[in-house]
């Protein structure tokens, strides 16, 4: 998995690429997310457009980040959720937890 990150209109955008299955790769996303949270950047979009698939480790990172941000008046939202990940969010009922948008732009705008 590779990861790119940037900020747009005060919103952190994290774009992982590949598969999120655990191990060192998954730590990369977790560590970058918490690096921003520690910098008090509390509005985060995870762009999933280029994620082939993720397993429960990936879902766990999303939930952990979501909870940490909510507890400090921040928010984590999803963008470009692929069909495969949408299916996982549905069967685990996490689809009821995350706000998801069809594009990064829409996700960023939703914070305004």
């Amino acid at each position, binding site marked *: 998995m590779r990861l790119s990150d940037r900020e747009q209109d005060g919103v952190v955008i994290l774009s992982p690429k590949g598969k999120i299955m655990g191990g060192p790769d998954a730590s990369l996303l977790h560590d970058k997310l918490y690096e921003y949270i520690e910098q008090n950047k509390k509005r985060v979009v995870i762009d999933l457009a280029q994620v082939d698939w993720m397993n429960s480790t990936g879902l766990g990172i999303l*939930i952990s980040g979501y909870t940490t941000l909510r507890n400090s008046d921040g928010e984590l939202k999803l963008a470009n959720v692929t069909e495969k990940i949408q299916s996982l969010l549905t069967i685990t009922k996490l689809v009821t937890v995350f706000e998801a948008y069809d594009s990064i732009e829409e996700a960023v705008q939703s914070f305004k």
Partner: protein
Amino acid sequence: MKNPTISGNTIIIPSSHDFLTDVDVFVEGILNGYRIDESVIADIAISVSELVNNAISHGNAMLRDKTVTVTVSKKGDDISITISDQGGGFDPGEIADPLAEENLMKDTGRGFFIVRSLMNDVDIKTTDDGTSITITKSLK
């Protein structure tokens, strides 16, 4: 064992998450050879990754001198993959329901549920000497 070893349709890895990608490349490589739909390959790959994660962390307790063995087979329209560890076994009945309200926001505990959701059959053989789980996906 320090590195993965491959023999035919079997890969054996030391108990470290560093080798998850090796298992994935190995398994998806075989499945691609069967010309299976990409979405089905992803379902199988996700399930294998869940069970290998469990075998490393819970089964073998991250002890690198213990190994995890993954074997892929195809019989007719069924793809079966067996994941075996050298741990002390577990009680499948003790796995918590990740959909229960009190568990929904936990960041762990969904792996086995996801495997059961994606696969047609999950067969667990667990003893004090290790656990062997065979997952089957029907291509029909």
